[in-house]
């Protein structure tokens, strides 16, 4: 079946290299990249773990668009038999296709993306009405796998290194709507700082490219509203 080949171009630091990779019917971008490391250039560095779109560690730029490579079928992105991959945008490159994701996670924490609980393991679990509007809102963003695809898609992050970015703000919004979370003021403060939600220009690339079909843009808009209400009520 592998009579055809795919022309794969890889950004590797300052240089670009091209490889001809055998094409198969069932093949993801991750498979094409893996083929190069396993058969052509053993020094090629890339990252993956789960292989099924759960861990969010395999994202790369594919033809200029950030994607989970393990869940992107080649046929969906190949253009005239060619593919171009590079390291994820907006994060420091460690080597070849591997980026340092720490800045992204530092911002996740800086956005107060951590549960602020009131109960302990000795208490009963809080009953929650899953149909309440707040919970529906919280649930809408909860499946984020912190893959950084949205972060790489956002031009604001590119130009404004302090900007917390879409996924961390989505997490903050989820917590703000979580009836179990007691960190309201801390969250609103965290997302109102100089790198906060107000830097977002609603360009919507985050929502357009999130492979999970989540909507950070609307979540950020929600934060803008809540921070304004909070300020107008004169709590700061």
């Amino acid at each position, binding site marked *: 079946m592998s009579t055809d080949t795919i022309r794969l171009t890889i950004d590797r630091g300052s240089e670009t290299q091209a490889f001809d990779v055998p094409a198969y019917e069932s093949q993801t971008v991750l498979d094409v990249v893996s083929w190069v490391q396993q058969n052509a250039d053993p020094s090629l560095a890339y990252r993956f773990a789960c292989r099924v779109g759960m861990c969010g560690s395999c994202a790369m730029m594919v*033809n200029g668009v950030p994607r989970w490579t393990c869940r992107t079928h080649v046929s969906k992105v190949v253009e005239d038999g060619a593919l171009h991959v590079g390291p994820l945008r907006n994060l420091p490159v460690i080597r070849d296709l591997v980026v340092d994701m720490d800045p992204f996670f530092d911002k996740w924490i800086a956005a107060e993306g951590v549960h602020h609980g009131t109960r302990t393991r000795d208490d009963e679990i809080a009953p929650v009405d899953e149909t309440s509007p707040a919970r529906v809102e919280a649930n809408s963003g909860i499946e984020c796998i912190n893959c950084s695809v949205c972060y790489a*898609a956002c031009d604001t992050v590119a130009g404004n290194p302090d900007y917390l970015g879409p996924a961390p703000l989505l997490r903050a919004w989820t917590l703000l709507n979580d009836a179990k979370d007691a960190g309201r003021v801390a969250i609103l403060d965290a997302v109102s700082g100089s790198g906060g939600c107000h830097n977002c220009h609603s*360009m919507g*690339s985050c929502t357009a*490219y999130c492979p999970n079909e989540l909507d950070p843009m609307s979540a950020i*808009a929600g934060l*803008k509203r809540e921070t304004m209400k909070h300020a107008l009520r004169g709590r700061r």
Partner: protein
Amino acid sequence: MTMVAYKNRAHPLWLAYIVHRLSGLFLALFLPLHFWVLAMAASEPGRLDGFLRFTEYGIVKAAEFGLVFGLAIHMFGGLRLLALEWLPWSAPQKTLAAAAASASFLIAALFLMRAFG
């Protein structure tokens, strides 16, 4: 790669963003000029008239048209953005809003064309 990357990444909301930004930048750069010309009105009306006569020429007229047009685009883009951010839209409402915005934009453009035509 960069240009191709932008081409591949572009999508309607992003285009709206870039148009809004470029129009805003354009307006901001033009504004001092505009003020300067107006200030002439009082100090040197003759010069202003000379300048205004200029507007009869094609290029200048085109520039003026571009300006008004730019202001309109920027304003509607801005109002769209404010609605997007301040009104908790649901997805279908968003589509509706986008449709309404583009309709009003179209009307505005027609209006302007008529006015200048």
